[in-house]
């Protein structure tokens, strides 16, 4: 019974230990790795299940099958697995990062904060099934029936005699084929692991620096590759001269790949130094004249023309009826880059008839299919190992960097590691599309009577994160989602979109379109509340009937009653939600942002966040996600700017597309619900609420509505 992942890890360890030993004995190697080596010893006695290995010493190794990019799935999903397994948290030995395998792990694409939603069923079922197998094994030993045994915290107890067997003792006897039928799961009242603030399982290695990220992968004879890509989107190499570049010591090969010119060298510095010396003539293509301010101007004009209706109810013509006040607001949002802390990278080792890949990917299964295609191999012959990732934010749902690495690896019998510079990362991203929006509203009796939302933006369909949905209308939903539904009870409602074909690679970014559609919606709602002189929360409550949403808003309102603002402080609120027409996908949140005017400028001081995203799996992990979301929102609103000029991205690094630094951190006060509904992640679901709350607070402070990003302080008089 051999574990393929284990084999490759073992090989990896053996070889790296030798190569680094030559140079620098022992220093690169630490406890984290030796734990894996030690595991070999009791492997013969271990029982291997899809998501875990049960060792004879009663410890458990868990395989994390979904992308760990900081959001804590390694921890929270292990909690789900342990709950129905009825294991003791002390039994957890380690959580290893998994690999792409749809037959074993189900759906692995880690986007849209859906991991907990999926694992709520998948991981818990696996836990429950292994629990059943363990009870059956014990029954066999004791010659009892299932009703005569029970499990508790990693042991099976004989109810007749009080004897017990640990899971570890049963590891040699237990069947490892999971039963097909769904089992009943634990009820919330008896949860002992779910709802606990377990410390992150990857804490120690991330503090020691031993955690293996994509960029840290090391293999025998590994060479480093960089690619020179056309600065203009859609451009191609016409010709190149590598004479000077090839003179750099350590350079192995320089050759054309579909995305540009690849340089392979012994180390990154050699590769990147050689790249600077390449003489490349680009065929820049039609996009070389395009600039983002012109695109935005065009999008704004499109708002005057009728667009494609993607949602309609009631009669939108009533918008023009002479009733009460009408309000129309235009918004515009720029391109946004992900800027994950770890730039894109991928290691590929093509062997005879098979291939092994190490990639920081959110989308390992699509990566596997794409790599198989490029390498002309059967999917099963391509193993995609998931590493830790230095941030994801949606960028790593794309497989461009994996495909690129495969093209390079085709030329070599030894492994290559493709590394993107920060400049590559910023200038060849899949950006959140720039867009213009218009919301027109008519009120009747202080309630929203007619509402029209228009969105003009780039189509995301060609670059959709799922291969399956590329080029389909559903691939476009991420360009305008959020504009096409409302929890506010509106009789006459319409959504129109203008979607242009984009030569620029665009895609999903933490919060997707809701980041900008909800920004517009919640800003307008705030303005409407002000027009009718209503409290911002009361106004929202008056138009909502969904109980979970009402509770979230009321909890925030109660807390706000005790908040006393200083003279230099102002407060704004916003509400966020999504609810699928059917199924468990739904969440509700509300944010109050407090900003303060300091000597030089405005600063986001504190957020009060009330949310119901279903059952809380790990309260401290949830808080960390909210804290991180706050900082991410500040970066997007006050720093990051991505502009296009002549088909090229004008920014290149953190100095010209700044992100929030430590002085801009935000205090977070979190109010959770005691919901036992299906859990939704929170990582990406707050951008569309936090940002308009901050914008509404800025309005209170300055009297000016924020209708474009990044916030222009000069126009705010700051």
């Amino acid at each position, binding site marked *: 019974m051999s574990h393929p992942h284990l084999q490759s890890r073992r090989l990896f360890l053996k070889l790296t230990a030798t190569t680094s030993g030559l140079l620098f004995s022992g220093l*690169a190697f630490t406890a984290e790795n030796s734990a894996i080596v030690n595991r070999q010893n009791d492997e013969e006695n271990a029982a291997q299940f899809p998501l875990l290995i049960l060792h004879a010493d009663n410890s458990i190794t868990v395989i994390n099958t979904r992308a760990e990019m900081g959001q804590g799935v390694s921890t929270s999903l292990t909690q789900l697995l342990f709950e129905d397994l009825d294991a003791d948290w002390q039994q957890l030995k380690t959580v290893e990062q998994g690999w792409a395998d749809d037959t074993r792990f189900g759906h692995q694409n880690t986007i849209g904060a859906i991991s907990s939603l999926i694992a709520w069923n998948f991981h818990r079922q696996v836990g429950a099934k292994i629990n059943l197998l363990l009870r059956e094994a014990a029954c066999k030993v004791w010659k009892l029936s299932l009703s005569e045994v029970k499990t508790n915290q990693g042991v099976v107890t004989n109810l007749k005699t009080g004897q017990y067997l640990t899971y570890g003792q049963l590891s040699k006897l237990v069947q490892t084929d999971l039963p097909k039928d769904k089992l009943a799961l634990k009820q919330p009242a008896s949860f002992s692991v779910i709802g606990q603030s377990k410390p992150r399982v990857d804490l120690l290695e991330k503090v020691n620096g031993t955690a293996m990220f994509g*960029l*840290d992968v090391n293999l025998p004879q590994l060479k480093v590759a960089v690619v020179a890509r056309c600065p203009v989107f859609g451009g191609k190499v016409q010709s190149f001269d590598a004479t000077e570049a090839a003179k750099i010591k350590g350079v192995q090969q320089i050759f054309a790949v579909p995305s540009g010119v690849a340089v392979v060298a012994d180390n990154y510095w050699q590769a990147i130094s050689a790249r600077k010396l390449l003489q490349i003539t680009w065929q820049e293509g039609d996009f070389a004249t395009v600039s983002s301010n012109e695109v935005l101007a065009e999008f704004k004009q499109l708002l005057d023309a009728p667009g494609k209706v993607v949602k309609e109810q009631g009669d939108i013509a009533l918008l023009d009826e002479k009733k009460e006040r009408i309000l129309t607001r235009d918004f515009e949002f720029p391109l946004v880059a992900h800027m994950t*802390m770890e730039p894109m990278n991928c290691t590929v080792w093509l062997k005879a008839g098979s291939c092994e890949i190490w990639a920081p990917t959110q989308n390992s299964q699509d990566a596997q299919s794409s790599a198989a295609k490029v390498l002309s191999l059967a999917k099963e012959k391509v193993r995609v190992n998931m590493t*830790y990732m230095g*941030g994801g*934010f949606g960028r790593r749902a794309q497989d461009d960097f994996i495909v690129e690495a495969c093209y390079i690896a085709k030329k070599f019998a030894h492994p290559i590691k493709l590394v993107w510079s920060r400049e590559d990362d910023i200038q060849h991203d899949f950006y959140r599309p720039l867009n213009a929006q218009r919301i027109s509203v008519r009120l009747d009796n202080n309630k929203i009577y007619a509402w029209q939302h228009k969105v003009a933006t780039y189509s995301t369909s060609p670059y959709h994160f799922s291969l399956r949905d590329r080029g389909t209308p559903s691939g476009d939903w991420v360009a305008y989602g959020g504009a096409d539904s409302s929890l506010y009870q509106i009789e006459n409602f319409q959504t129109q979109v203008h979607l242009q074909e984009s030569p620029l690679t665009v895609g999903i970014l933490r919060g997707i379109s809701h980041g900008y559609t909800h920004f517009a919606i919640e800003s307008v709602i705030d303005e409407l509340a002000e027009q009718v002189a209503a409290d911002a929360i009361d106004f929202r409550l008056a138009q909502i009937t969904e109980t979970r949403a009402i509770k979230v808003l009321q909890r925030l309102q109660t807390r706000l009653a005790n908040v006393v603002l200083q003279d230099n402080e102002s407060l704004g609120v916003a509400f966020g939600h999504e609810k699928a027409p059917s199924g468990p996908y739904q969440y509700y949140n509300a944010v109050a942002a407090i900003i303060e005017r300091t000597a030089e400028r405005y600063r986001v001081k504190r957020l009060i966040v009330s949310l119901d995203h279903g059952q809380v799996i790990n309260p401290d992990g949830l808080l960390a996600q909210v804290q991180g979301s706050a900082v*991410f929102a500040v970066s997007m609103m006050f720093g990051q700017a991505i502009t296009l000029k002549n088909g090229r991205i004008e920014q290149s690094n953190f100095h010209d597309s700044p992100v929030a630094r430590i002085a801009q951190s935000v205090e977070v006060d979190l109010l959770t619900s005691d919901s036992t509904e299906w859990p939704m992640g929170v990582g990406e679901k707050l951008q569309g609420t936090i940002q308009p709350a901050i914008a509404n607070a800025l309005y209170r402070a300055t009297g000016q509505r924020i209708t474009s990003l990044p916030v222009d302080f000069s126009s705010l008089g700051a």
Partner: protein
Amino acid sequence: MTKLNINGNDIHTELSADTPLLWLLRDELKLTATKFGCGLGQCGACTVHVNGQAVRSCITPIASLSGQTIETMEHVNTELMTALKRQWQVHNVPQCGYCQVGQLMTASSLLNQNQQPSIHEIEQAMSGNICRCGTYGRIKTAILQTAEQLATEIK
């Protein structure tokens, strides 16, 4: 040929003199705790200690380091670093974790020079270290508590 002292070992390297220390560490010596984030001295992910001071290894050519004492996270085991790492764990600081070694290296350099930093001084010293996951609040708490703890231990 450049001669350096890294983590207590004498290293002779044939790499070109302009090679930033970061790539000697990561690609040649396989010391991967030190990270690559920007290559421009903008993010702090590559922070190491040179003579005990926080230095951005991505913009420090190896030629400028001969005769200096270089230490990376793999080797720093001072009482201060142990205390910092403990607080980092107590406060569950890391998310993706990619920036954290750089954060810790800068924090330990700060507390080395200033045992009782104010919030403002912490913000200043740590301003060169980006965390895209937004763990800043927890980093501040962890540094403050480490300082407090070390102060009581000394008393």
